[in-house]
């Protein structure tokens, strides 16, 4: 299963690494670039007989996304995964990630950090141009980071990623220095994400509405037009320069003439369109269709996202989950394994970790999460929820053991919603009343901002273990002006805070790993979180599609190597 992908990925990425190894002071062992990340994941890519096909130039690939159409194609604005998926085709980042999860330079040629960790110097490759003809220079780094930090940009993900960068200084045409407020060993990981991708400084000067419809980058494709609700039309960037040359590629431009990037929100329609050949690639593939896709001869790419695993967070700031016993009782009461198996048809592996399986520093502890109804009942009795009302729910002082669970229809796929319904039924057996509210995204954010939740599932995609600080540091319980906060479990633990800060600032890799492990143990053992599985990111593609597999640091596929049967 893994072989075709590895094979396919090698061409581009082996090459990339041989160069970058020099730059990243011995930080990597294996020469596979981020694009190959997927190859080491459990499922990997299956299907079409890629190894036999000879690359052909030409043809327009039709891509069907199940996500909502972004309102802005510039991933600096807001910053969500659907934006990353499409932007990965026309924007590139300073850094990327290899198959081991190591960060390597991409648009950057090399980088170094000062001893105090407060000055990061980045040198760019020479000879790279944006698709509007502007040359990629250090000025671009400065403009892009300023763009991210400008409140009018309304950047969310990218803004947080460059939070410690105070200012950018241009040293020479290709060299910039980033001044940091405190050491940040996650900065390169942050700069490897599409949300901090580098856009043409000239294009950024246009008004936001225009930049949203046609962001200008250095990627293998460029935005030709955007027909709202219909498609984003991408065409080949004929002047594309691979930042890291690859001698196995005859030409350094993409095989495809272009990509028609469509939005088909109905899962069944999307799959039907793939089956009938109307589209070539679909994302957000439903578990049941993934299972049947192999029989239909369709290709499958499983590219779990980095950052957090999908998990349910228990709001520890209010009753009843302010009591660790009640939290453990809930976690012991539900049986995730059976549900995940049935609902995901073996396409998702159960996780017992806070972090995605692609994060090397993830720590896993299965023993904490075994289903044990008897223990759950005992724990609840101990916590004082010993009475039962007419409907069989537990009560304490006349108050029912009732928890609210707002579920976003945007964040949770149907299979996950079904899993939550199963939890609801299982939790009822030990006396929990779980009230599931299916909400659209803005109502869901509203419910979170008003703390109207006891349980919530809010996956967070970010490269590297520093996502832990975003999600579990007590600072993240302080809401932004809009009410948003990332620490949904409301974990407030001084020891944890210290571990997370320290882990981010240390230069020593081993120490970093150990600090993060301690931090993860605190969260897991405190039963703040019920891990479920990796953030699912499945793609299916037709028999005529070859060369699928390369991805960015956040596992969004790049179709630079992809070609179609003619």
């Amino acid at each position, binding site marked *: 299963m893994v072989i075709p992908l590895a094979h396919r990925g090698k061409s581009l990425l082996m090459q990339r690494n041989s160069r970058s190894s020099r730059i990243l002071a011995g930080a990597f062992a294996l020469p596979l670039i981020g694009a190959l990340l997927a190859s080491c994941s459990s499922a990997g890519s299956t299907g079409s007989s890629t190894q036999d096909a000879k690359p052909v130039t030409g043809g327009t690939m039709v891509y069907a996304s199940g996500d909502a159409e972004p309102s802005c194609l510039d991933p600096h604005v807001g910053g969500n995964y659907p934006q990353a998926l499409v932007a990965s085709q026309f924007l590139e980042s300073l850094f990327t990630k290899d198959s081991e999860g190591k960060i390597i330079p991409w648009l950057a040629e090399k980088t170094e950090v000062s001893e105090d960790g407060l000055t990061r110097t980045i040198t760019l490759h020479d000879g790279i141009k944006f698709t509007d003809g502007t040359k990629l220079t250090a000025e671009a780094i400065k403009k892009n980071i300023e763009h991210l930090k400008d409140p009018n940009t309304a950047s969310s993900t990218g803004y947080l990623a460059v939070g410690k960068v105070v200012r950018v200084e241009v040293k020479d045409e290709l060299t910039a220095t980033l001044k940091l407020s405190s050491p940040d060993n996650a900065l390169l990981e942050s700069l490897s994400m599409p949300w901090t991708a580098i856009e043409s400084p000239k294009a950024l000067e246009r008004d936001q509405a225009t930049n949203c419809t046609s962001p200008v980058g250095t990627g293998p494709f460029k935005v030709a037009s955007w027909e709202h609700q219909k498609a984003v039309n991408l065409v080949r960037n004929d002047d594309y320069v691979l930042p890291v040359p690859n001698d196995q590629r005859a030409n350094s431009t993409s095989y495809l003439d272009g990509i028609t990037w469509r939005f088909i929100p*109905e*899962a*069944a329609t999307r*799959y*039907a369109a793939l089956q009938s050949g109307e589209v070539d690639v679909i994302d957000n593939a*439903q578990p*049941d*269709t993934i299972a*049947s896709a192999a029989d239909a001869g369709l290709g499958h790419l499983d590219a779990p996202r980095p950052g957090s695993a999908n998990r349910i967070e228990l709001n520890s700031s209010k009753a009843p989950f302010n009591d660790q016993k009640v939290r453990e009782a809930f976690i012991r009461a539900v*049986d995730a394994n*059976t*549900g995940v*198996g*049935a*609902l995901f048809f073996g396409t998702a592996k159960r996780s017992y970790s806070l972090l995605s399986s692609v994060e090397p520093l993830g720590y896993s502890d299965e023993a904490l999460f075994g289903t044990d109804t008897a223990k759950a009942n005992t724990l609840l009795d101990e916590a004082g929820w010993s009475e039962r009302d007419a409907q069989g729910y537990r009560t304490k002082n006349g108050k029912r053991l009732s928890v609210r669970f707002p579920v976003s*229809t945007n964040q949770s796929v*149907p*299979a996950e*919603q*079904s899993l939550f*319904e*199963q939890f*609801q*039924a*299982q939790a009822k057996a030990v006396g929990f009343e779980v009230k*599931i*509210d*299916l*909400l*659209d995204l803005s*109502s869901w954010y509203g419910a979170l901002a008003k703390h109207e939740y006891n349980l919530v599932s809010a996956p967070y995609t970010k490269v590297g273990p520093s996502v832990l600080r975003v999600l579990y540091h007590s600072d993240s319980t302080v809401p932004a002006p809009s009410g948003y906060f990332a620490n949904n479990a409301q974990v407030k633990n001084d020891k944890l805070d210290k571990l997370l800060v320290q882990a981010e600032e240390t230069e020593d890799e081993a120490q970093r790993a150990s600090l993060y492990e301690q931090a993860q143990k605190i969260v897991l053992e405190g039963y703040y979180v019920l891990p479920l599985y990796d953030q699912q990111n499945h793609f299916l593609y037709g028999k005529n599609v070859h060369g699928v597999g390369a991805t960015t640091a956040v596992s969004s596929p790049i179709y630079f190597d992809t070609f179609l049967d003619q």
Partner: protein
Amino acid sequence: MSRTAKICCLLVIGLWLLMALAPSVLAPGDPLAINPTQAFAKPGLAHFFGTDESGRDIYTRVIHGAGDSLAIGLAATALGMGLAIVLGTIAALSPRWLDEIILRILEALYAIPSLLMALLIIAFTGPGVGPAIVAVGLSTAPGYARLVRSQIRSLKNSEMLEAATVLGRGTWRKSRNHLIPNALKPLLALVTLGIGQAVIWAAALSFLGLGTPPPAPEWGAMLSAGRTYLHLAWWMSLFPGLAIVAVAVSATLIGRALGGKVKSL
């Protein structure tokens, strides 16, 4: 109405009522009981209509869903009809200028397609069963109101009422004995037709994720859940769909038997 038609109508109404009020008679199981190991079972003897993704029995859910679906349909129709009777009667009996104003208001209500109206209301209130009922009720009201108005108007000038005047009946007795019952009669037929349509609309909202939240066995919501698995488990969407169609069809048939015409919708 012929005798057989009457009996058939009563039987059908009885069946729906039984499903709505005492579903356990027909399906003793728990519509919410999950059994993940039995997920996606095909229809068969163990599960007449198969099971869904969590192993819930679809037959049980369809039967138990009748209550929710019909209640929404009834509530929405009652709301629409109540509003229609008030507006229609006022318009029919009031002077021309007021009649014109009410007519314009009705036209304004009518000018926004039903589902758009529902979405509008939901845009302002957020999703849920309540807004869905209000939305469906509001968007069906103008149609009914126009009928009430024209019904009362034509009755007001009918020979029947003139004959009653000539026989010396006062306004009150004329209204009570002739005007109101005769105006209401076609509405009764319309109400049954309307319930069928309201069930469909409410299901459409659930389908769009804006109506009844799962895991309640509302048919639209079941359909919505089932469509995800259309390729794998057709039965998940077939049976709730059939239930909606069956309600709408039997409502139409009963409405017709009562003398209703589709036209007036």
